[in-house]
């Protein structure tokens, strides 16, 4: 009989990704590039919110966007057409999330683009629009400086209770589509209470990406963050 040999590992499968993400953050700090990881469910208005935000900031700082989706490049094209900033599409090849390695490859993709040489003339802000999903992206550190998420009114105010990890890892929660509040049983105060149960430090910003209401506050937060990171 063959003898069975045991090799003990005792190793978290997230360990390598967490290390990779920390290294990426350090490199970005040295280059003065602020990376924001933006997450949400599909259809919450991530792309529209981004367009509004970028249009308020693009004359003040250099911005690029990485759109992550399982397939298609509709979002990248939409961003480029509506704002004029550099936007690339990442395909996750069927995966439900991005990890630090994929993010690193995406950043290298911006570097290769003909429009601007990332290395010589770095962007101040790169926004990663993660795959639309409230579960998996929360598990994987992308190497971003901050995590933000968008929750839209039609999704309901109980989402922080149902997807606890997502709301625990986010520094900012943008509540979108507040123009339709009268038509839904969405309790804004309850929602804030649930978010703060998960993360007492989370900043909550109600907006309407369609009319632009509240976007100034989100843009202002982002600009302050970028300036702090560059110091």
């Amino acid at each position, binding site marked *: 009989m063959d003898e069975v*040999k*045991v090799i*003990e*590992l005792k190793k978290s499968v997230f360990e390598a990704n967490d290390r990779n993400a920390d290294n990426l953050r350090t490199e970005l700090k040295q280059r003065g590039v602020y990376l924001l990881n933006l997450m949400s469910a599909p259809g919450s208005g991530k792309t529209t919110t981004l367009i509004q935000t970028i249009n308020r900031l693009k004359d003040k700082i250099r911005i690029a966007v990485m759109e992550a989706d399982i397939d298609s490049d509709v979002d990248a094209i939409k961003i480029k057409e509506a704002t004029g900033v550099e936007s690339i599409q990442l395909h996750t090849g069927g*995966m439900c999330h991005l990890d630090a390695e994929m993010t690193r490859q995406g950043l290298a993709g911006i570097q290769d683009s003909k429009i601007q040489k990332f290395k010589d003339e770095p962007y101040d802000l790169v926004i990663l629009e993660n795959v639309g999903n409230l*579960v*998996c992206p929360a598990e*994987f550190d992308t190497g971003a400086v901050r995590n933000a998420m968008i929750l839209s009114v039609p999704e309901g105010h109980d989402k922080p209770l149902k997807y606890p990890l997502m709301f625990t890892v986010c520094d900012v929660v943008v509540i979108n589509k507040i123009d339709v509040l009268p038509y839904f049983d969405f309790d804004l105060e309850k929602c804030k209470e649930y978010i703060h*149960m998960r993360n007492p430090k989370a900043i909550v910003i109600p907006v309407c990406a369609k009319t632009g209401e509240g976007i100034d506050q989100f843009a202002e937060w982002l600009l302050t963050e970028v300036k702090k990171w560059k110091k």
Partner: protein
Amino acid sequence: MHELGIVFYIIRDVKQAAEENNVEHVSTVVMNIGEVSTIVPEYLTDCWRWAADKEELLKGCELKIEPIPAVTHCDGCGKDYPTVAHGKICPHCGSPDTWLKQGREVEIKELLVR
């Protein structure tokens, strides 16, 4: 939902460990999976079968899952309680001042090789 991604991570780590130990085939990979890790064990083993059989090193290799119960500790009264049954509020004293002691593990415990 992200079990396939996790499987790719496991394969990468197992390959590395096999190389370091000069192993040509692994017969079993033992995982510690926490009760509130958001991993569905059946999905993980299904994804494993599909992906592992594509690797010479892991053909037919079994993925064995040892569950770890979720336990929360209460700073209010100092007691532990099962997380899944009671959530964030301590059933002993009613305090919300609690934290997860164990149960989020997604860990490769050991490899069995012949």
